[in-house]
């Protein structure tokens, strides 16, 4: 493939990440037009030929109007497909509906599977995502899925910004224990776990700390922060157990609902999110928020995918 046959596409809203990636790759974003009519119907046109090109569509799907973003993405993929693109890779760092990945009760939809089907139907040939809620979601797809990890970027952030010799890694629930343990291993730190009994989605009930956090800087690690109720509660429990301070590092800072109030009112020193989700505006109203830029990982993965190089290098080395 000739070098110029990459095309980067991004929707017209939340282009922040796409622009960072495009800057790192030194490739401009391809001109395209997304139009919405008042009811929300989207029409899309690409300003340049994409025939026989390697297309990368970079989206940031956050909170709020998820469905609009999903349909936009699908329409963009389909537009590229019908315009005879050679290969279409959807870069969806925060995979929407990832949490509805199983039939947790009778007749519940497995929406993550539906998303996978829809992406494939639209014509997507490859999916790149980051820190999937459950890595089994990769199995829902008929096309290759590359699940990147924010961990290397998180490790670098901790090393640069936290006095990490005194730190301890905390998993806020049993499901995230593996992720936290992996990070603790890499930083050679101890790790503790908060066990919680969750009654319903987005609601926290009772929490129990397993492990010793006395006089430690606690780093809560999770894949997603939604309303941040869990994080705030976890911080309370950690401080009750004589922790020195608490910060939280999450990959996808969806920060929906009254997350900002929860964070501002909590005892967390800092909530650090990667920029898989657009939250620039929320940073203004919440001084505790900090951001880890993962555009480097994405840019490198695009480069490697395009050139047919191994992606696994990205899992080990710091970005």
């Amino acid at each position, binding site marked *: 493939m000739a070098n110029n046959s990459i095309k980067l596409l991004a929707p*017209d809203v939340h*282009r922040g990440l796409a622009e960072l990636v495009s800057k790192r790759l030194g490739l*401009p974003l391809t*001109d*395209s*037009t*997304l*139009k*919405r*009519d*008042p*009811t*929300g*119907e*989207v*029409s*899309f*046109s*690409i*300003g*340049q*030929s994409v025939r026989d090109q390697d297309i990368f569509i970079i989206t940031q799907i*956050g*909170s*709020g*109007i*998820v*469905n*609009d973003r*999903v*349909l936009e993405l*699908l*329409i963009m993929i*389909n*537009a590229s497909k*019908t315009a005879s693109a050679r290969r279409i890779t959807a870069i969806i760092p925060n995979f*929407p*509906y990832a*949490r*509805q990945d199983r039939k947790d*009760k*009778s*007749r*519940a*939809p*497995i*929406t993550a*599977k*539906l998303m996978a*089907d*829809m992406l494939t*139907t*639209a014509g997507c040939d490859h999916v790149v995502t980051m820190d999937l809620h459950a890595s089994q979601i990769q199995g829902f797809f008929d096309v290759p899925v590359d699940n990147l990890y924010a961990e290397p970027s998180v490790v670098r952030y901790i090393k640069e910004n936290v006095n990490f010799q005194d730190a301890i890694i905390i998993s806020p629930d049993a499901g995230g224990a593996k992720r936290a343990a992996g990070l603790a291993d890499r930083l050679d730190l101890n790790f503790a776990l908060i066990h919680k009994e969750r009654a319903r*989605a*987005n609601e926290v009930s009772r929490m129990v700390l397993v492990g010793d956090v006395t006089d430690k800087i606690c780093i809560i690690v999770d894949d997603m922060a*939604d*309303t941040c109720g869990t994080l705030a509660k976890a911080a309370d429990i950690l401080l009750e157990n004589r922790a020195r301070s608490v910060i939280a590092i999450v990959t996808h800072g*969806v920060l*929906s*609902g009254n997350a900002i109030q929860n964070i501002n009112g909590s005892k967390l020193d800092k909530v650090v999110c990667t920029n898989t989700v657009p939250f620039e505006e929320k940073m203004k109203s919440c001084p505790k928020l900090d951001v880890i830029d993962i555009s480097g990982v994405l840019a490198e993965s695009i480069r490697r995918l395009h050139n047919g190089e191994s992606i696994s290098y990205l899992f080990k080395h710091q970005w």
Partner: protein
Amino acid sequence: MSFKVDLEYPFKRYHCKTQPTKSIVMSSIVIFGGESHPELVKKICENVNIHPSQVTLGKFSNGETSISVGDSVREKDVYVIQSGCGQVNDTFMQLLILISACKSASASRVTAVMPYFCYSRQPDTPYTVKGAPLISKPRETYTFESNPGTPINGGSSTKSNSSSSMTTQRPGADSSFKSLNTTIRNTIDLQQPQPSRVQPGVRPVLPTLNNTMSLSRIPIIPGGKVQTPRTSNADAGELFNSQNAGYKLWVVQAGTLIANLLTASGADHVITMDLHDPQFPGFFNIPVDNLYCQPIQMNYIQHHIPDYQDAVIISPDAGGAKRATAIADALELSFALIHKERRSQLLKGPPDATLTSGGALPVSPKPLVATLNFPRNINASSPPKPQISHRHGGDDVNQSKYIQTTMVVGDVRNKVCIIVDDLVDTSYTITRAAKLLKDQGATKVYALITHGIFSGDALNRINQSSIDKLIISNTIPQDKTVQFLGKDRVDVIDVSRVFGEAIRRIHNGESISMLFEHGW
């Protein structure tokens, strides 16, 4: 059994041969309603004679749609009713998730019932008048003139003023009228030679292009002053080309995608009404039943329009002619068509026909039957905004060349006119048509519409237009319309019986073709 068959429910007067024994067969129907149109769901269920099943619809705090199906659907014949209205993407996703939930809960068949099928029309290529994504502010007065054409560029809603300089423009369209003049004058004066054609792939070096985020996206077809062709005759072609040159505007056809998404989610069958494109069912790999509102509309005409025998059925554009003639033929009424003569515009014709070396720009609108002289009529009835009124002055020979003429093909004088269309969004087409008809001597104008989306200030426009009565079906909730225009001016016709009967027949494996013919 989690739902009940109400045997006490009075049988409908239409020929539904629902016997108590039938109800046992009916018992394997399950109907779910989406959020978009609960009222219609209720009515359809009444017609099918069952209760809608339990489903909890909502959203998670992060905006993802959440659904939980309350009743068992195992081995059932499931119908999911969701009209493509409201926030379309949300309702559509909800439909997909609901279908997928039913399918994965072992429903034997899932049918998507979409009274209005979203994404079924292909919106806004820059030359269409319908479906412009324009959110204009409600104004005090409207001019229902045909020129300038519908503001097409709307673009992303918030940046309309800046985007107008970036997206496709054509002379004669709205804001670019001045620049058209400039263009023409420059053509004649050959003052500033500039490249008129932007290379595909090269970002145009227009200063306006770079300062907004939504930047354009369509690198060709630079409008306005930037693009100034060099010489008159040789470059007439270039002028023409430059409007269409470079990478041709390419708008995605969402139809196939939407069809495939429905199939991917697990839908086995689709029921819809009055699709904008008759070809649309071809995009599907599953059966699509396209019901018609026409029998109900005909029924309405016969019963509610006095002296309908003398009425004229009007198609507001050439695309809807077939639909209108079908009604006209069935009721043996006369028919007229509103035709937009666009050839008189500089752009659309072949260059030689519109540009000559002398600078005189001969154009012959050639009205077939009657041409409306817009300038005078408009100034007489409702004066347009001052800055555009000069266009209609009628004194400037050059300017009048480019007025897009609209004409009625057929005789409407002293007649009752019934405009028939499948869909109204911005209402530009029908309000303009109504105005034209009244100017041509129509006594009364009815508008008979299947799907009323009424986005932006459409209702306002209709309110101020010459439409005497709007007859709209309830495929999309019309409470707001009735509230806004008043009960006297709007009649909502109920399509639930057609859908109910279609569901009943499809469930029982009967033919639905008789639904197309008989007045329901």
